[in-house]
């Protein structure tokens, strides 16, 4: 989240799209209800289903799964055409005035620079025209035909209400009624927020959906403001923290980059990731990348990390290619992965394409499952339809301690790290994750010491000065994450103190300030809220630097006056900034530097080269789509999607065989899979079901409560049909389309069992993030006999 849970109460419009927080984040969603009760905010939902959030919303728009960019593009067009943007904000805080290279263009579904052979873009033409000073040229009037503002207008001119309605399957009138609300916050005295979740990320265009939302929110002047922002609602207790600390293929803690093979030295790596400013007043904060990277290497390799060995740069593995979820399973599927370790995770049910994952798991030599419960993934060798005698994979299961038995911190969606206490002891026979990780590390290290083997200098040199080396204390790890001055041993209070000369160490620079000489900031329980805006600076610790709203300099105008005095993010007092922890120098006067300190431009990007599939978001159809792309039929699907071997063949070939759109989702009584072990929740939501629209049920002769079989080109499920009015038929490009909803929570372990929804989903992911396309695929359905 750019903002945080309680900040939702400051909004005038709450757009919920790609999420269903009334169901999946109920205690966070109450802040949206409070916004409505206290300030008359409008809550609106856009979703393929009428959800529990829709039930309490002021307005709902039903769309086809995978048509989000069309809808967002339609709103962007309306905002530009009707002058609904926050003019002063756009001029002061975005790159609208930047002039783009004359080589840039977009035609027939492709941006310039596309290479057919590699299915990828050379992004060189997506750049700014530079002046003699090396900085980007700008046209403050925004009239230059190649200014970002005019290119944006031209790009989205195609997204007329009629085109959007055709793609999304809604009526023009419904689209326009929703647009009137969503596009109403482009003034200084109004703020609108967006709540989204995996309904946006789980698409082959997931990252671009979020970019489209970013463009819209910037045009409306909603980024950086209380009551504004783009807020990702995350689905596991510490999914934010586990990402910050980089249990992620392509990043290191604090979003530093994993080195790549061409980066032959630390200097080469730093050069690639240390941006240069594109505007004279850009703070360009990531120019500090070397300080963060060297401090991380010092935290990991201690005295062994010296200038002479490039601070241990080559101790880090450089992957040959993408190494994320789908690529990992593809390696296993191809028989190239020997072993797999899963910790606190049930990957088999998580999917996608469970039949493929079962083969991939059976191709492993060994698998280790670390979890408090003996979950489905541990017993994949006896999943329904699998003959154990044919599975040679050796499997080890280790019972690990539960959250209630452990202290430590979780970071919520709003970036608030909160410390928790261990309530009960770890029972006999069970071990903590810390113990298991340390024991594994020590035993492997001892094997290398005893018998040698592949290169193991980093194992020997990993810094490990914990009081109990076989089980470090969480507090020790926490202080290591915060970082300290190696010359004095003093805990640091800001990442501004980090150095690139090896005199500081920090395991994760964005958490610097979380455990200082003043103690554990994450354990703070101060409830004061002097501004009434809900910042709560005395409660826990929000990264970075306890800042509660990211980009908060943009909550004020060029002179440092808040856009809305009643909802001031920060305010220039003449001497310093007051309010939230400013993302600007605390005493830097307004006008001294661009508001967006993290970009090379010093302003926010309406046009961006950071994604691989285009500088503007464009509508592409899902990999499995019920229709051709009416904007550009020849480039129907995102052209930069990576196709793993055999995956194209695993997709539906014809809508005659698979005529219905389908999507998967959660229900409030369950959380993915662990709740299968909780009696009260199983009782509340016992059985797998399929949500079938009324008209389709009538067509198929299915009555409410009867069983249906649903199948995709990959697998099938069978369960009780919930015949519903909540999903209406859509008219997509002139054809009637039915959508089917399928919850994900069941497997073959647990108090009750049921069909596995991800048997249906396709093994294909977003071009940028490789997040699988769980949310839009094709199925067929019949009454089960």
């Amino acid at each position, binding site marked *: 989240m750019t903002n945080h*849970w309680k900040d939702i109460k400051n909004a005038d419009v709450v757009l919920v799209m790609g999420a269903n927080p009334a169901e*999946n984040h*109920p*205690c966070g969603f*109450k802040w949206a209800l409070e916004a409505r009760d206290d300030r008359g905010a409008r809550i609106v939902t856009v979703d393929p289903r009428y959800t529990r959030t829709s039930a309490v919303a002021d307005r709902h728009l039903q769309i086809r799964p995978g048509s989000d960019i069309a809808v967002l593009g339609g709103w962007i067009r309306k905002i530009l055409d009707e002058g609904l943007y926050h003019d002063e904000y756009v001029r002061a805080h975005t790159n609208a005035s930047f002039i783009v290279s004359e080589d840039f263009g977009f035609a027939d579904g492709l941006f310039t620079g596309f290479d057919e052979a590699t299915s990828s873009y050379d992004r060189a033409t997506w750049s700014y025209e530079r002046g003699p000073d090396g900085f980007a040229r700008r046209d403050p009037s925004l009239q230059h035909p190649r200014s970002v503002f005019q290119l944006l207008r031209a790009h989205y001119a195609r997204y007329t209400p009629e085109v959007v309605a055709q793609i999304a399957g809604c009526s023009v009138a419904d689209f326009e009624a929703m647009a009137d609300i969503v596009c109403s916050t482009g003034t200084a005295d109004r703020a609108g927020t967006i709540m989204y979740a995996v309904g946006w990320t789980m698409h082959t265009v997931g990252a671009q959906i979020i970019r489209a939302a970013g463009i819209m929110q910037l045009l409306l002047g909603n980024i950086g403001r209380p009551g504004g922002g783009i807020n990702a609602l*995350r*689905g*596991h207790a510490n*999914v934010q*923290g586990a990402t910050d*600390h980089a*249990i*992620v293929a392509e990043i290191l*803690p604090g979003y530093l980059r*994993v080195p790549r*093979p061409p980066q032959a030295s630390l200097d080469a790596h730093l050069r690639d990731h240390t941006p240069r400013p594109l505007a004279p007043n850009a703070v360009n904060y990531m120019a500090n990348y070397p300080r963060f990277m060297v401090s991380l290497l010092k935290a*990991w390799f201690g005295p062994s990390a010296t200038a002479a060995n490039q601070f241990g740069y080559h101790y880090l*593995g450089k*992957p*040959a290619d993408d190494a994320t*979820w789908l690529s*990992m399973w593809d390696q296993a599927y191809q028989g190239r*992965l020997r*072993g797999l370790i899963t910790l*606190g995770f049930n*990957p088999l049910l*998580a999917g996608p394409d469970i039949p493929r994952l079962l083969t991939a798991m059976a191709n492993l030599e060994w698998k280790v499952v*670390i979890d408090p*419960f003996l979950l489905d993934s541990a017993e994949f060798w006896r999943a329904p339809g699998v003959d154990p005698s044919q*599975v040679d994979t*050796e499997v*080890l299961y280790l019972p690990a301690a539960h*959250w*209630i038995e*452990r202290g430590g911190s*979780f*970071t*919520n*969606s709003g970036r608030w790290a909160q410390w928790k*206490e261990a*309530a*009960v002891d770890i029972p006999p026979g*069970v071990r903590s*994750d810390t113990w298991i990780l340390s*024991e*594994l590390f020590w035993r*492997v290290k001892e094997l290398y010491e005893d018998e040698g*083997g*592949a*290169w193991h200098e980093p194992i020997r040199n*990993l810094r490990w000065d914990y009081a109990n080396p076989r089980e470090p204390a969480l507090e020790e790890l926490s202080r290591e*994450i915060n970082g300290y001055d190696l010359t004095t041993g003093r805990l640091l209070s800001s990442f501004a103190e980090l150095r690139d000369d090896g005199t500081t160490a920090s395991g*994760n620079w964005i*958490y610097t300030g979380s455990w200082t000489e003043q103690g554990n900031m994450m354990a703070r329980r101060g409830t004061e809220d002097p501004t009434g805006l809900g910042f709560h600076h005395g409660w826990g610790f929000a990264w970075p630097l306890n800042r509660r709203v990211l980009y908060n300099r943009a909550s004020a105008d060029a002179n440092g006056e808040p856009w809305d005095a009643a909802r001031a993010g920060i305010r220039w007092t003449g001497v310093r900034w007051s309010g939230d922890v400013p993302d600007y120098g605390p005493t830097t006067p307004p006008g001294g530097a661009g508001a967006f300190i993290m970009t090379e431009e010093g302003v926010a990007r309406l046009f961006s080269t950071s994604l691989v599939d285009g500088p503007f978001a464009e509508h592409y159809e899902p990999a499995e789509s019920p229709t051709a792309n009416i904007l550009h039929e020849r480039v129907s699907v995102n052209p930069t999607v990576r196709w793993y071997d055999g995956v194209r063949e695993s997709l539906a070939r014809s809508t005659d065989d698979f005529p219905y759109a389908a999507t998967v989702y959660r229900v409030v*009584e369950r*959380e993915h899979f662990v709740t299968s*072990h909780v009696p*009260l*929740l199983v009782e509340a939501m016992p059985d797998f079901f399929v949500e079938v629209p009324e008209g389709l049920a009538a067509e198929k002769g299915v009555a409410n409560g009867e069983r249906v079989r649903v199948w995709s080109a990959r697998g099938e499920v069978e369960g009780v049909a919930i015949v519903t009015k909540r999903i209406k038929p859509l008219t997509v490009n002139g054809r009637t389309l039915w959508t089917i909803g399928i919850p994900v929570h069941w497997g073959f372990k647990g108090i009750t069992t049921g069909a596995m929804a991800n048997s249906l989903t396709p093994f294909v992911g977003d071009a940028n993030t*490789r997040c699988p396309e769980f949310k839009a695929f094709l199925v067929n359905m019949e009454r089960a006999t």
Partner: protein
Amino acid sequence: MTLSRRDLLKGTALAAGGSLVSALGFDLKPAYAQSRELKISGAREYKTICPYCAVGCGTIAYVHGSGGLNTTRSVIHVEGDPDSPINGGTLCPKGASQMQLAMSPRLEHTPKFRAAGATEWQDVDWDWAMSWFARKYKDARDATFVERDAEGRTVNRCEGIGWVGSATVTNEDAYLITKTQRALGIVYMDHQARI
């Protein structure tokens, strides 16, 4: 004779107000005192965080048992933390049933091993389990470690082991996973954020 809840409350009020003998003909005072004893009395409060979604609801776990010799601490009740600025004491159905997750009889207490082709698990001890784990890990690392790639570039990666999870562990353990696995040269690594 049946007593409605309303009657009972009235009786309680009377008893609290000093009335000695109820309509039942005997003194209800001690019995009411007993019934007013909360189940959490004597419990110790621990401040924790709900383990489900990422709203981060503050939660209070009420625990019985001193933790001393021959005692087992046990969660007897869970409720929302009213001080939390995030949830203000509220919890959803999942959060409100955390106790059943915390104290589940379905939690495992013994490592298990499943041999190639086997139809059942066998219980194993921790020493055996960790020795087996380390042996498999090292052998796979030795067999698939690449110091230099085909172009002669230093890459120092282990290609044969994957790591997944987790969004359910603390920041501190998440950090320790990254620190140890990156030092071991793992490159295939992901967690729930991707899916």
